């Protein structure tokens, strides 16, 4: 065997290539759908960002007003890009680690079609003004239920894989992924119930949901990818498996309770909010555990980071996770929250979480998964590097100045001697910086989309062996 093309490799059931071949269509469908929503969401993000400092631009059309474009940006990024690509990555990871082919493939393809349609319908609904009006849940309940149902079907496939697996022990990534597939349908179901009809109670449900959508759906998927790709790419097992389990149960125990730190100072009974503050601070434990584990695994292998497109993104994302989580624990303290609540600081914080952590992790996962699914090579290493630097520097340029501006805005807002309109005008330089960063991020997304189209359509040069795979694999084995 001199090459590792499908025709020549071991295709017995449970072999990696066999599993990848079975996974190919459904995972590619989910990832490509996600990339489409990434581009659409980026366009909305640019619109919303520019409207923040040029409010009259496109101001005559109701469907392009800031109050509709901004929620649609969030919803397409969260339920389109991150959820779809995340579900595809999760299915692929489960197939690899449980050594079983993805089941229910026609159903998964079917629900992906329905999921896309629901997102299209939901987009029209929000732009036309038929919003549910709850942050992170702007899609009307009927649309949201369809999306949750789609994820539930994919989750059933994940459970089938768990119970039909061909390995004895479960790797820690599997724990995270199984948890994610249980938690999101539960979250989506409960948040759609019509029982939260008291405004303040609904606000509590709102932030319980919104924080858990990140903490119990995207974070587990991102951490599962990190726990798989870091050891896999550098070829060294995780530093401490025991620590990773501690991290998992710590996250499950504390993250669930975090949501009410968004409501500090609100009229909800204070003891609920205090529980959330305590739980937010306790999150330091699982975060430090994960950070130590990843760092001790990578240390000494930084050349692998340099040479691997996947690991660049994954390491950047893992570092962002540590940073954003520790920042979140500090933000939850009342004295800090008094300043930064209601400011652009929190917006920047959310983007470190959803972008610098989740999105970068998904980019890295795609760079590993797609060559193996398509048996093709990435078009250009230079473009991958450009994508990395545009998005990495772009998100730093987005978040760092905006957080500085947010703190200044918060301090000014808490000083009654400064007029309110001054707290608005002082943020405009930071908002313009954000638009510049947004252009960089969008350029990175366009490059990524181009690369994905090239590799999925399998056009361009075809090397004898995809270089993303281990070119020395054959020698190592013989």
């Amino acid at each position, binding site marked *: 065997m001199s090459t590792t093309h499908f025709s020549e490799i071991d295709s017995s059931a449970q072999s990696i290539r066999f599993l990848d071949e079975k996974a190919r269509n459904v995972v590619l469908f989910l990832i490509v759908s996600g990339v489409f929503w990434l581009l659409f969401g980026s366009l909305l993000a640019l619109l919303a960002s520019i409207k923040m400092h040029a409010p009259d631009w496109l101001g005559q059309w109701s469907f392009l007003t*800031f109050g509709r474009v901004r929620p649609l940006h969030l919803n397409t990024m969260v339920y389109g890009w991150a959820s779809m690509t995340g579900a595809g990555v999760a299915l692929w990871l489960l197939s690899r680690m449980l050594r079983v082919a993805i089941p229910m493939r026609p159903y998964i393809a079917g629900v992906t079609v329905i999921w896309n349609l629901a997102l299209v319908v939901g987009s029209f609904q929000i732009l036309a003004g038929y919003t549910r009006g709850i942050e992170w849940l702007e899609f009307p309940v009927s649309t949201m239920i369809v999306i949750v149902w789609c994820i539930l079907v994919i989750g059933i496939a994940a459970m089938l894989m768990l119970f039909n697996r061909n390995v004895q022990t479960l790797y820690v990534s599997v724990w995270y992924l199984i948890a994610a597939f249980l938690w999101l349908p539960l979250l989506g179901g409960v948040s759609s119930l019509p029982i939260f009809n008291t405004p303040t109670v609904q606000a509590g449900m*709102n932030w319980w949901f919104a924080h858990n959508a990140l903490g119990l759906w995207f974070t587990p998927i991102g951490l599962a990818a990190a726990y798989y790709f870091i050891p896999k790419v550098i070829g060294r097992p995780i530093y401490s498996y025991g620590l990773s389990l501690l991290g998992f149960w710590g996250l*499950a125990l504390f993250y669930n309770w975090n949501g009410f730190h968004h409501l500090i*100072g*609100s009229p909800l009974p204070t003891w609920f909010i205090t529980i959330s503050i305590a739980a937010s601070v306790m999150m330091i434990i699982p975060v430090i555990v994960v950070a130590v584990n990843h760092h001790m695994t990578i240390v000494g292998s930084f050349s692998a980071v340099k040479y691997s497109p996947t690991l660049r993104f994954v390491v950047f994302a893992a570092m962002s996770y540590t940073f954003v989580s520790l920042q979140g624990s500090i933000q939850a303290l009342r004295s800090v929250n008094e300043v930064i609540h209601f*400011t652009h600081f929190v917006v920047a914080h959310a983007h470190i979480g959803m972008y610098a952590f989740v999105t970068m992790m998904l980019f890295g996962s795609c760079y590993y998964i797609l060559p193996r699914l398509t048996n093709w090579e990435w078009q250009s290493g230079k473009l991958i590097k450009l994508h990395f630097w545009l998005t990495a520097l772009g998100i730093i340029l987005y978040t760092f100045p905006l957080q500085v501006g947010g703190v200044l805005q918060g301090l000014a807002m808490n000083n009654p001697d400064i007029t309110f309109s001054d707290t608005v005008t002082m943020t405009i330089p930071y908002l313009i910086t954000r638009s510049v960063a947004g252009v960089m991020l969008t350029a990175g997304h366009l490059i990524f989309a181009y690369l994905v189209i090239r590799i999925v359509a399998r056009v361009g040069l075809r090397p004898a062996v995809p270089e993303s795979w281990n070119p020395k694999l054959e020698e190592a084995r013989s």
Partner: protein
Amino acid sequence: MIRNWILLFGIVAMFAAAMVGLTILPKIVVDPRVEEVDFGNTFEIVQGHAIYVREGCIYCHSMQVRPEGFGADFERGWGRASEVEDYRNLTPHLLGTMRTGPDLSNIGARQPSADWHYTHLFQPRSMLPGSIMPPYPWLFEVVNEDARPGRQGINLPEAYRIPGKKVLPTDEARYLVAFLLSLNQETPGVD
């Protein structure tokens, strides 16, 4: 197989505990406090609330006043601290998380002029030059000066006037302003 079930049970139990704690318990504690309050929401206010939601005002305006001594909400004239009884059971809730614009809990007392609100909604910069609030021209009709005799157009400053035209608020603008004017935190609280 028992390990599978213990894992799944643990995952769901962690979730269920927090779900009870953060969604069901607040409902049990808060709901009795708002049961018997007389809300007195008129048709205009309910419609105006829906338009406030539709246009996404919540993404820049909070509607919750923090207690005196926690932030400068009180000093800015936004009223006393909000209480669960203040929200008059209009859902979706409008507590909000951003103050790109000022808190609106007390806007009816701070700016009781409907004419000001109409002009400000049509073109915020005609009232507040540095504002970054979007304009809402679709809540207004621009008609010829001589159309609809007896109805006076909104009072725009010279720079924003359209020659030969007058600007009339539609019903939607009337509802929205009725809702805004109903927001008043000068009233004594329940506690």
